[in-house]
């Protein structure tokens, strides 16, 4: 059996989730050392959506994301070493240390940028899609967003325009029911379904389990094909859950802002466990395979951390660079 990322599509999905999980766990473990000095919003628990969505995109398709972009960046194929170097504030970082965890970019795989202001990449993504369309490219732009971003007026404006101009854009909404510590029902009307809301704006839309990576990729694949064929913008809503605190490396269930049963129910539906279970009968999958993946990924992650740690700082003399092109 070959080492590394498997070719089999379902195995690949699991592998990618596992890899992101292990990267994030490593960040959480290392973060308290104070070397990665920037806010980090970890995506542990939400890998199913990230991987499922990204796997349905071509490398040439574009993506933008939010403050919680690690999984999106990696799932889209972003470079791991340059990602970690960015968190360490190094010149080899994907944004040359200027942006940190909240500003990731890897143009080689169409990851056009994540930003820290809630909702701020939504119109940027729509603009990318407009740009692609004008240039006659067959690319689809995927805009990752959270349930909180739905509340920003600019979401509504961006979605409206995408419909008016029939742009090739996919809004991929990971609804984890929280914005920082605030549950969705204090921010949005009780009983609202996001996908129903956006249908009324004019998008094609549907709602899915974000922790079933196979389901996510299937529905996204269909959506992307339809969008690519000129079917117009869509929004897919994926229910999922963040395991750790909103920002930072620790669990925070001690704060009691999320019902214990809710937390437990979601943890029981760990997307990695769900996918593993689904693969029980898959000939290429076994506890062994999983263990080998783990150790391979561990080595990769260790090497990437070593790279990031060893990498050079940006030179002080370059501090004022890049203000103007």
């Amino acid at each position, binding site marked *: 059996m070959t080492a590394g990322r498997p070719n089999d599509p379902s195995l690949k999905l699991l592998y990618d989730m596992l890899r992101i999980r292990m990267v994030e766990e490593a960040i959480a473990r290392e973060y308290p050392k104070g070397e990665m000095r920037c806010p980090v919003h970890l995506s542990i628990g939400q890998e199913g959506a990230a991987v499922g969505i990204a796997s349905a995109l071509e490398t040439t398709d574009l993506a933008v994301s939010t403050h919680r972009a690690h999984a999106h960046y990696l799932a889209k194929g972003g470079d791991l070493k340059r990602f970690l170097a960015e968190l360490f504030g190094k010149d080899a970082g994907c944004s040359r240390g200027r*942006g940190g965890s909240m500003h990731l970019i890897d143009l080689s795989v169409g990851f056009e940028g994540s*930003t820290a202001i809630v909702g701020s990449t939504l119109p*940027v993504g729509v603009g990318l899609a407009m740009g692609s369309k004008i*240039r006659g490219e067959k690319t689809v732009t995927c805009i990752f967003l959270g349930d909180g971003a739905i509340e920003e007026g600019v979401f509504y404006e961006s979605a409206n325009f995408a419909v008016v101009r029939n742009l090739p854009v996919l809004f991929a909404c990971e609804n984890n029911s929280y914005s920082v510590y605030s549950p969705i029902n204090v921010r949005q009307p009780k009983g609202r379904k996001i996908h129903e809301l956006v249908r009324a704006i004019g998008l094609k839309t549907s709602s899915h389990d974000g922790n079933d990576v196979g389901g996510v990729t299937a529905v996204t694949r269909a959506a992307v094909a339809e969008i690519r064929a000129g079917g117009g913008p869509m929004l897919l809503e994926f229910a999922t859950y963040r395991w750790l605190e909103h920002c930072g490396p620790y669990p925070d269930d001690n704060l009691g802002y999320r019902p214990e049963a809710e937390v437990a129910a979601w943890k029981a539906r760990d997307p990695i466990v769900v996918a593993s279970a689904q693969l029980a009968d898959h000939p290429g999958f076994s506890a062994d395979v999983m263990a080998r993946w783990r150790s391979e990924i561990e080595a990769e992650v260790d090497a990437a951390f070593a790279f990031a740690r060893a990498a050079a700082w940006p030179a002080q003399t370059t501090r004022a660079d890049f203000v103007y092109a």
Partner: protein
Amino acid sequence: MPDTSAPQLTFVDAVRDGIDVAMQLDPHMVCYGLGADDPKRIFGSMSGLAEKYGNTRVFDAPTSEAAMTGIAIGAALRGVRSVTVHQRLDFFLLAMDQLINNAAKWHFMFGGQRSVPIVIRLILGRGWGQGPTHSQSLHSWFAHVPGLKVVMPTNAADAKGLLMSAIFDPNPVVFMEHRWLHQAVSNVPVGDYRVPLGRAHVLRQGGDITLTAMSFLVPEALRAATMLEGLGIKCDVIDLCTVRPLDWETVSKSILKTGRLLALDSGWLTCSVASEIVALACERHFRSLRCAPRRAGMPDHPEPTSFELTKGLHPSAESIANDVCDMLELPQRFEIAAGSGPHDVPGAWFKGPF
């Protein structure tokens, strides 16, 4: 030096021409805004463009200023330049997040990998009851922010030349057009004509005092200089053209020559471009200044709507000339002329209300 063989165009036609030429040069460039293809075509500045370039490249937009700005940014990232337009600057306050947090910072915060070549045309209102929310000139805000360029042309040739430079500049540019200058006529070179950003133009040379101005205050300053010449006072009149980056070199040279500075500003004075110029002059040329520098601009309150209350609201040639006399300790004063028409319109061509 105006090329007098070039055709005479109005400011607004020069803008149109600049967009037109740019759209020929760059087959992907787009142009949009509320009213971009309506019968009035943004005061005529977009006449014929929709017909020529089609609805994919020239189009109307929803009243969604924030998103439409972010969309320009995204398109720029994909290699599609744009000129977007807002009929009043005041409406664009809805888009500050996109302009400041995204456009101005994208190149920096992603380590120089992508830049955001967008142009945002903001039209500045004045008079005919434009009132508090249709007359603000917030260029000082934009000038405060690293990553932006801010252009304020005063004549037709510069309007075209600076706009074309702005369009092909790799950075986000805020392009501010004063409504009262839209019918100003000058010789405008045909074709791909560019006037470099970041250079001030010395429109008049004189050794006694430096007047710096932008936008509609430039013609007032020129008028003041003519009036002052009658008293034997010679002014350097500097049209800043671009208020960020500021062409300090040109301003500096003039101040070193004249030793006197009156910084005019078409907006409020507190924390303004005029404040900045005075501060720079004092920090850097303190010993060369022969008297206290001065500023003149909008009084420190919103523009009221009433015809009566807008009298004498803005600096005029007369008030500028009087400030200069005061600085030179001359006794002469000019009467704010009654003028041939009402004070609240730029000329007979302006058929209210906008």
